[in-house]
Each structure stands twice: as structure tokens, then as C-alpha cells.
């Protein structure tokens, strides 16, 4: 039994600290999964928070025959598909000139990697981040989810298939189609040697 499953069993026996440990183990991956799904840090934090609460409340249904991350992200993907479609977690428009703030001054700062010391690189990072998020938003839900599960959670094709309740063959197809679209939209950044260093 892996560490996550052990913690879940302890939580099911009433140990709250065990769930808090699970949260800390998966907080970063879930936050980034949520961020890439809704393109806003504030919305992503709210989305991730709601997902962890759902997982907490559903803990009674968890059985260690399933890998914890598969179960966790199944709840996450269902929540994303149901709630984001309803318009919750509104995506804010990102502005290059104002660094991500709207014209009325409200909004949020565009997230930038910490290692961007030069103005030219900072502007380039702004543009890259905006292009990454907009290209993801153009993907159909299932392609976006399959791609994000791969790059943000480290799940294998088999685990992604179980999370999305589909086949490995379907996952391969989703990933190929997602990558084809993303490579087309992000082609310039793929050729830019500095893109990965900003």
C-alpha cells in the first residue's frame, strides 16, 4: 500500500491530520492543474480549494484498490467539467500592458516565473504565459484534461484512462490531437531557445 492510500485509511478512521498531510502532498500539482484549466491564479486557488473539500467529503467512498491520485483527479475532473461549464471560477482577461490587470485596475497580476530579471525577458514571459493559457483554452475539455493530467500530475496513460473513464487508446488520441493544436499555436515559442529559460 502506498503512502497516499495509508493516509486515506488513517483519515477514514478519523485522523484529520492524515488528510491535511495528503493535501500538502498534492497541493502544488492540484493548484497547477486548476490554474492551467481556468487560467487565473485566484480562480485556480478557489477551484483547488473546492476540489479538496469535495475529496474530504467523499473520503468515505475511497477504497485502496484504486490509486489515490486516480481517485483524486477523477473528482477534480468531474468538478472542473461540471462547475467550470456553469460559469463558476470566471476567467479574467489578461493584459500585457498592465501586467494582467484590467482597465479598471481590478483583476490580478499575471503570474510570472520568479527568474525573469530583465525587462525584455519579463515582457517575453508575459507573452508566453498569455499564449500558453489562451492556447489551452482553445482545446476541447477532454483534450485539455488529458494533456493537463499528463503534464501536471505525472499520471501514466493507463492512469489517465482510469481518471477519465476511457481507454488508453482514446487517451493517446486525445494527447496527439491536443499537442497538434498546441504546437501550431505555440510554434514560435517552441523555436525560441529563451522561452524555457525565462
Amino acid at each position, binding site marked *: 500500500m502506498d503512502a497516499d492510500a495509508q493516509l486515506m485509511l488513517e483519515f477514514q478512521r478519523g485522523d484529520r491530520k492524515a488528510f491535511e498531510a495528503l493535501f500538502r502532498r498534492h*497541493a502544488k500539482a492540484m493548484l497547477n492543474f486548476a490554474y492551467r484549466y481556468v487560467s487565473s491564479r485566484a480562480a485556480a486557488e478557489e477551484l483547488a480549494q473546492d476540489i479538496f473539500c469535495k475529496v474530504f467529503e467523499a473520503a468515505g467512498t475511497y477504497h485502496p484498490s484504486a490509486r489515490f491520485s486516480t481517485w483524486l483527479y477523477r473528482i477534480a475532473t468531474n468538478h472542473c467539467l461540471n462547475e467550470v461549464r456553469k460559469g463558476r471560477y470566471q476567467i479574467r482577461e489578461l493584459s500585457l500592458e498592465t501586467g494582467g490587470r484590467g482597465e479598471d485596475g481590478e483583476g490580478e497580476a499575471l503570474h510570472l516565473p520568479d527568474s525573469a530579471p530583465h525587462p525584455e525577458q519579463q515582457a517575453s514571459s508575459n507573452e508566453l504565459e498569455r499564449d500558453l493559457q489562451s492556447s489551452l483554452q482553445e482545446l476541447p475539455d477532454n483534450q485539455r484534461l488529458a494533456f493537463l493530467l499528463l503534464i501536471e500530475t505525472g499520471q501514466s496513460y493507463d492512469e489517465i484512462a482510469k481518471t477519465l473513464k476511457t481507454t488508453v487508446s482514446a487517451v493517446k488520441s486525445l494527447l496527439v490531437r491536443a499537442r497538434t493544436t498546441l504546437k501550431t499555436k505555440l510554434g514560435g515559442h517552441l523555436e525560441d531557445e529563451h522561452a524555457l529559460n525565462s
Partner: protein
Amino acid sequence: MHLTPDMISAFADGELEAGARKSARLHLDECAACRQEVVRVEKLSALFSAGALEPDAAFEDRVLTRLRALPLPRQSFWVRLQRMPMRIPALSALALVVVGVGGVSVRQHQAVVKAEEAAAAATAAEEISIAERADFLENVELLEELDALEALDDRVPG
């Protein structure tokens, strides 16, 4: 012949089986176009990974505060049942207990009925025994004589 997009994607993700991976490597050693395509797939993933967020203390505090306010969830019945050790023998034992209790109940009822019947029979037998011992039957003739004697008293003045 180039690698298919599926194979390039699976190769970049480490999802090709050993034999297919070996064949792909041999092809990539010879094919610059496919090598470049693998590099583009890997770079694409790296672009997204480079901008990863770090959860800050405020986010963690908000989530933990909210989690601590939630009541502990209940386990579903089936999860509790599945966690029973030796669950198959336990279920069999449970079934036997249920059948056994049912069987005992039937036997108890039968015993009660028999006891009632026996009691009734005993009561009847006792009544017959009493009746057989009673000498009142012998006294019936005496009572008849008494009636006759009373009748004589009515006829004799005095």
C-alpha cells in the same frame, strides 16, 4: 517511413513498450525529422512546466481552515463491509446465525404448543382422576333417600 504522431507522443512520454521503444530509438538515430518532432513534443511540455505556481502560505491556510470546519465524513456501508477481516467466513457465519436464530424461534414455538397441549391433557387427566376418586356418585343414592325421607316428614303430623 517515419514514426506516427502516436508513437512520437508515446516515446516522449515514456509509454512505449520495450520492443517498440527500441525500434523507435533505432529509427530516431537515423531520422532527423522524427528527432526534431520528439524534441518539439518535449519542449511543449517543458513550456507549461516552467511556469508552475507554488502554493503560498495564505492559500494553504485558507484550505486548511475550511477543511477543519468540515464534519468528518461517514463511511459508506459497503466500504465498511469490504474492510471486514475474513469477510467471506464472516458473512457465512452471519448467515448461519440468522438461520440458527430462525430455527430456534420455530422450535421454541413448537415447544410452546406442545407444552400447552400437554398441560391441557394433564388437566383433563387430573379431572378424570378426581372424578374417579370422588364418592359423590355413591352419595347420589343417599341423596335420593333423603328426598324420600323429607317427603315422609311432610306426611307425619307432629
